[in-house]
């Protein structure tokens, strides 16, 4: 059952990624307004119809997927690297450095993530360009999301530091720097990969929440959260179910990212 779900998730993810990449070469863009087709129903020309400004919903959706699929991994990689650096150093060094790390990590973990995000995102200038807003949004996700993975990395680094083989290596004269590079980093690789995959769906969801609160990616670029935000003003969605496509993708994409890891935990 798990294998079947995992395979389906991987296929869906691949399809979403291919659609997002292929759409780069398709004519039309998410920002183009078709004034002859305002709020149009699905047709061969516009498979998901157009919005109230005459923009192609499918082009917008593909643009949103592209942004999420490109920047969520970048943010996850960034926060995993910070977690590796801070958590690894804290666990490896121990003592006051570890204590200081624990206090800072506890502060970050104690505050609800979304609250931190809206606070930090809201204090940035209001007149940032769309491209900057994308980078800032995902950079913030990367910067604020390090604490939880870093705690896991710290625990592992600490266990390695206290392990017998490290003790033996030190007794044989191996330096701390050499042990860090030759023993700690290779040993942390699997944990870091797992943390990266855990962060991915979380960042896609966080961006959606930010977008829905009006603090995500700004116009004219489109994000999945921003598209769902536009649905707030819609009422007759039963009569026009295709407008729910961004909400469906927003649940489907993180779910696929999540299910793609099924069975890995037990295997490791």
């Amino acid at each position, binding site marked *: 059952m798990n294998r079947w779900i995992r395979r389906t998730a991987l296929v869906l993810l691949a399809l979403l990624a291919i659609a997002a990449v292929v759409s780069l070469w398709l004519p039309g863009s998410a920002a183009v307004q078709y004034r002859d087709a305002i709020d149009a129903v699905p047709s061969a020309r516009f498979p998901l119809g157009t919005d109230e400004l005459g923009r192609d919903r499918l082009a917008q959706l593909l643009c949103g997927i592209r942004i999420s699929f490109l920047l969520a991994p970048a943010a996850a990689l960034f926060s995993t690297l910070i977690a590796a650096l801070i958590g690894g150093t804290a666990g490896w060094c121990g003592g006051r450095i570890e204590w200081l790390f624990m206090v800072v990590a506890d502060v970050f973990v104690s505050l609800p993530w979304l609250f931190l995000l809206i606070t930090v995102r809201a204090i940035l*200038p209001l007149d940032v360009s769309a491209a900057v807003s994308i980078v800032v949004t995902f950079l913030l996700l990367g910067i604020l999301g390090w604490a939880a993975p870093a705690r896991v990395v710290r625990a592992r680094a600490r266990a390695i530091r206290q392990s017998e083989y490290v003790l033996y290596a030190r007794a044989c004269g191996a330096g701390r720097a050499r042990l860090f590079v030759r023993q700690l980093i290779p040993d942390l690789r699997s944990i870091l990969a797992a943390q990266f995959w855990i962060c991915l769906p979380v960042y896609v969801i966080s961006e959606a929440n930010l977008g829905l*609160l009006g603090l995500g990616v700004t116009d004219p670029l489109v994000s999945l959260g921003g598209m769902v935000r536009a649905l707030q003003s819609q009422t007759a969605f039963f009569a026009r179910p295709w407008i729910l496509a961004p909400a469906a993708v927003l649940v489907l994409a993180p779910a696929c990212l999540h299910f793609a890891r*099924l069975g890995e935990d037990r295997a490791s």
Partner: protein
Amino acid sequence: MKSGNRAADKQCVWLRFLSAQILRAVLITLIAGLFGAVLVRFSPGFDSDERDLDMRLSAATHRADARARAAEHDVLAFYVSWLGAAAHGEFGQSRSMNRPVRELLAERLPVTARLMAAGGLLGLMAGLLGAGIAVGRRSRIAENILGPGSGLLLSAPPAVTALLLLWLDYDPALAIAIAVCPYVFRYAFGLLRESASALHVTGGRARGVGEVRLFFSHILLPVAPQLASVATISAAVAFGAAIPVEVICDRAGVGQLAWQAALGRDMPVLVAVTLLITLMIVAVNAFSEVVLVMCSREPRT
């Protein structure tokens, strides 16, 4: 004599443990408050106020406003004076809403508390029940349905869930329950599965002990303290979900206040809300830690 000394030592260890928990909670809360104050102080537009453009206000009022803002320039001084006032129950005046922060919090706290209590409890019960069924039934079908189901719920952003529930005219507390439930399920399921795989459980089953008795006495009971600490996860997740739910469903709670304060760069409100949220979560964390340690009867020093 020896047993008296041992009891005194144990009491001392407990006291040290409890004071360390309290100290940690206070320290984290203070740092979080300072963090909020620093962020807002160095944000662009901190010095500007829309009241400056209000021609109906007199020059003296403008000067008073400027003086009040100048007092907030030194973030540390502002924070210390704010903490002093907060100790007397005075949290300052909201700049964007022009009302005392204490009043705003008193008005909105019950709304969030109701939403979080209803949604959090519902999510907690559903998660625990699901985990109990998945482990207690020992059926791959239950595990295979509930596991991916929780994964799917985990992938639904609370804002999207709130939007769907708003359209369907359901109570927004359900969105919080949907956010809390998968977290609780995963945590409880992991604990119960580990407990169920213990050798004495297999032995009991081989000797013909009934499944119900086996579940309650030998699977659930040993992990009950850890399951109690699941309340920590529920509180943090429930508040995280309360922000978008209150904003989207237009509920005048603390989550919506935090959002409005963040948008309006309202420093006194933001610092108060940051402290309040951190204090709440840290207190729940400390409580669950104490419960865990009390059950293991051995404080970690």
